């Protein structure tokens, strides 16, 4: 697997913030909110789960160190071989969930 970009496996992400905190170049932004878990058995205490709203990697800051891939406890990040394509503005290098899939 060549290290062209980092892919997000959205289903595995729990919005735990570990990757954003470990990132030495501060390139990962995460927004999340909590929602109650539906279909709990009757009488069960109400519980909530984190729902990912936004996951963005700013490729203009990322140095491809792979610390986020290593640190993710849920294997929600992995190396992808297709490199990040070039754009004409720095803002265009911030990839949201759709582009990170």
């Amino acid at each position, binding site marked *: 697997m060549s290290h062209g970009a980092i892919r997000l496996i959205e289903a595995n992400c729990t919005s*735990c*913030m570990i990757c954003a905190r470990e990132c030495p170049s501060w390139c990962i932004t995460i927004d999340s909110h909590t929602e109650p878990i539906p279909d709990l058995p009757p009488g069960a205490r109400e519980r909530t789960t984190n729902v990912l709203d936004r996951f963005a990697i700013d490729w203009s800051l990322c140095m491809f160190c792979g610390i986020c891939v290593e640190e993710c406890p849920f294997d929600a990040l992995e190396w992808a071989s297709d490199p990040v394509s070039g754009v004409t503005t720095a803002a265009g290098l911030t990839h949201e969930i759709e582009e990170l899939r």
Partner: protein
Amino acid sequence: MSEVSRRVSAAEWHEAVAAAKTDGYDYFDWLGAVDQIGRAGEFDEGDFEVITRLVDLAAGRAVLLRTVIPRNEPRLASIVDVFAGAGWHERESGELYAIDFIGGDPRRLLLSEDYVGAPLRKDAVLGARAGIDWPGAKEPGGAPSRRRMVPPGVPEPEIWGDRNPEGEPDPEEVAQSAVGGRVRRRRR
């Protein structure tokens, strides 16, 4: 290769290097410096440690010569007259730690002429980092954080920055403030 480590005083530095050369350690390997701020006890004489490694290729042995120089007067005799190759290493350590190698080449090697400060000193702060929001400060689920967290490498604003009312902070405080785990809770 067997390697020995020798501590020498700053006053004997040049003499010790020259003596090691006559002793057979005639190959200069490298010279570097370490900012030992905050490591009291071990380094109470001073705050920078300058280290050089010399090799005796014929006998297959090496020596590390270490000396300690004080932070408020970072001066050390240059060893370029013993090993000319040490010049680049001295220029590098000299500009990155603002150490004055007496008798050496005072020109800069890596930094630009207009660069202000000594970036490898542990009290050198990345100002841009202190000025922008850290993305890791948010909590999972978006709940407002009850902990006030600061990322590693950024000193607490009480110590360094606009909110410090007392002007110039103490280098030791800045260095101490910026270390710690990957995520620190801010001390109050």
